[in-house]
């Protein structure tokens, strides 16, 4: 029973963090209908940003969060205006974005290998606290709780953005129908550019905690994170950022339960869940309900 409790609580914490890992990808797809195959590489850059701050400048890795937001602006703004409007004009923007962002992913990875080498990099173990915090008698490292807290705050911020700001309303209008939104006078390009910036920044923020949750950051972790993010957002609901939270929780709890009771197959869990959910409910777990709202 204690093992089950530990796996469930660990799965929830892990899942909340992985909601943050996937949410940026879903936001970008929802707003622009482009598939950001470089999502995992943006997470990796966030991890290296935190690494440089911590190891190079002796700062707390949490300073990587504002750095990730700045990075989102510096990368997202030119990337949007340089690429997305052209993609939108094409016959098949989704497929073209697939190819284009695959290329961007490879370029980022190559630059990261050049800059940081191929080896693993970790952050100071005690930078986010050296103890453990317990819930229901089950203790987890401080770093897990900090990652979970920041993930919740980031997703709450995104929720408030969608529900309380004019830009958020405009973003939801574009997600519902891009052409109609444009017809109503919404500056689609500006709002979409901001969404791309937010998406990349959220990926970068997730990257800050990657070394704590998956042991280390290296230039080659991007593709695996992109694949995991895809599984999470499809489980939740493709195109609906808030559905990602449910996807992340299903992924986290499923992975940790498998790891506890049948560890050899733990990496199969998210993809088996993905297959089952796509077969039973192709729009994802929150597909229809949220779209109506």
């Amino acid at each position: 029973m204690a093992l089950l409790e530990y796996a469930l609580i660990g799965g929830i914490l892990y899942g909340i963090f992985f909601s943050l890992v996937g949410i940026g990808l879903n936001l970008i797809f929802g707003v622009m209908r482009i598939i950001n195959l470089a999502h995992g590489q943006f997470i990796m850059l966030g991890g290296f940003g935190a690494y440089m701050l911590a190891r190079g400048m002796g700062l707390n890795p949490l300073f990587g969060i504002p750095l990730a937001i700045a990075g989102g602006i510096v990368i997202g703004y030119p990337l949007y205006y340089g690429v997305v409007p052209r993609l939108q004009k094409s016959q098949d923007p989704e497929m073209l974005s697939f190819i284009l962002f695959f290329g961007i992913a490879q370029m980022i990875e190559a630059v990261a290998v050049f800059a940081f080498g191929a080896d693993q990099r970790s952050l100071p173990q005690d930078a986010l606290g050296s103890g453990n915090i317990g819930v229901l008698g089950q203790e987890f490292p401080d770093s897990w709780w900090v990652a979970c807290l920041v993930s919740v705050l980031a997703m709450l911020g995104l929720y408030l953005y969608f529900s309380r700001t004019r830009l958020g309303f405009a973003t939801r209008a574009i997600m519902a129908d891009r052409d109609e939104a444009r017809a109503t006078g919404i500056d689609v390009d500006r709002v979409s550019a901001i969404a791309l910036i937010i998406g990349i920044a959220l990926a970068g923020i997730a990257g800050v905690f990657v070394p704590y949750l998956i042991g280390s950051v290296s230039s080659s972790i991007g593709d695996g994170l992109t694949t995991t993010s895809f599984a999470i957002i499809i489980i939740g609901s493709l195109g609906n950022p808030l559905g990602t939270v449910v996807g992340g929780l299903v992924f986290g709890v499923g992975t940790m339960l498998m790891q506890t009771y049948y560890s050899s197959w733990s990496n199969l869990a998210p993809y088996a869940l993905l297959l089952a959910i796509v077969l039973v409910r192709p729009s994802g777990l929150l597909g229809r309900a949220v779209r109506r709202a």
Partner: protein
Amino acid sequence: MRTHLKRAWTACAAGLLASGLALSAAAAQTAPSEIKIGTLYASSGPFAVASEGQYHGLQYWAAGVNKSGGVFVKAFNKKIPVKIVAYDDQSSTATATTLYNQLITQDHVDILMADFGSVLTSVAIPLAAEHHMLLIDPTGSGANFFTKKTNYLADVSIPSSTVWPLPLAHFILAQKIKRVAIVYGSNDFDASQAETLKATLEKGGVKPVYYHGVPTTESNYTVLLHTIAAHNPEAVIELGYAPNDIAFLHALAGSGLHFNMTFTIFPGQLLALMEKNVGAKTLAYTYTYPTPPLVAYPKTTLGPNTAAFVKEFTAAEKAAPNFLDAAGFNTGLIMQQMLATAPKFTQLDFHQALMDMSGKTTTLLGEFKINSHGAQMGELPPVAQLVPAGKGVTPVVVYPQDKATGKAIYPAPKK
């Protein structure tokens, strides 16, 4: 009559002379201008650090022999320069399969050498056998590679997983540790080590209390460690690649759990990388297999001893070598001796030359001893405990007794 005989002798002599000249010409033609060694390396992915080290060691060896005019090839009775034909497989077995095939069928390399580790070697073994090429396997040790007699496989720089964990198993039995947990990566390298370890422990009356595999890509061990702790093990043995070991040791340090003995593989091969990632405090009092240059072989029959290699490599490369550099260099040395002793330039003669060297050769990695299945039975590393020394840790060999440089601190003190 005499005139006829004279003419016949003249004709015979002319014929012999002509055929002799033709043979010499043929021999000169078949001697290649360079010996092509085909191999792969990974510049990215989970095996990149180890693979690049191995490749670097090979390049260092090739530069050294080419500086002296090349390797002596007995089949042609001359020195020939070596050329390394290498491609980047990015740690992907799918890419590696295509590239090994390219090395064999397009580049027509003379010697085929595998990339680092069992995962990237596994795809080369059937290809080499199919094309009747000897695969020089530097660091692929998976037990299932060596299940039948073959002329086309030779593990040269790392012990086979069927014998590698024996010192560890014997140490655990000698310490009278009864409750052992084993968690291993589900791949040829780790799974076969785990099987050997489990079988040897069971033979000694110790049945592991926890014995489970994890995916090779496993990166989070927090929940797993808690599951392991629920079985109350005295010793926890984690058999993985470097990224697994880093994630495992990180999770252990953050978990607040403590075990009397913790063992991981890669601190013994890539100590600097592990210290950089998990810190000396986390590594302190854990156990590993120390490999050269962490342990030294002072007497060799082929090439420099471990200390001389470290000195020469450091002077040339401006960085101290790790085990993978040494393994790449050692593989070059073995191939060099193979070419120097094989009477003909054929794959079967290369294999026979290696078999002839087996048991009679000691290099910087220890005794070179392969069996008819291609498995390396020598070069066995001992068991060491990493003890604090200054700001870092240093390995103290604790088993076997004849190689021990200190006594194990057991149980490990709480940090």
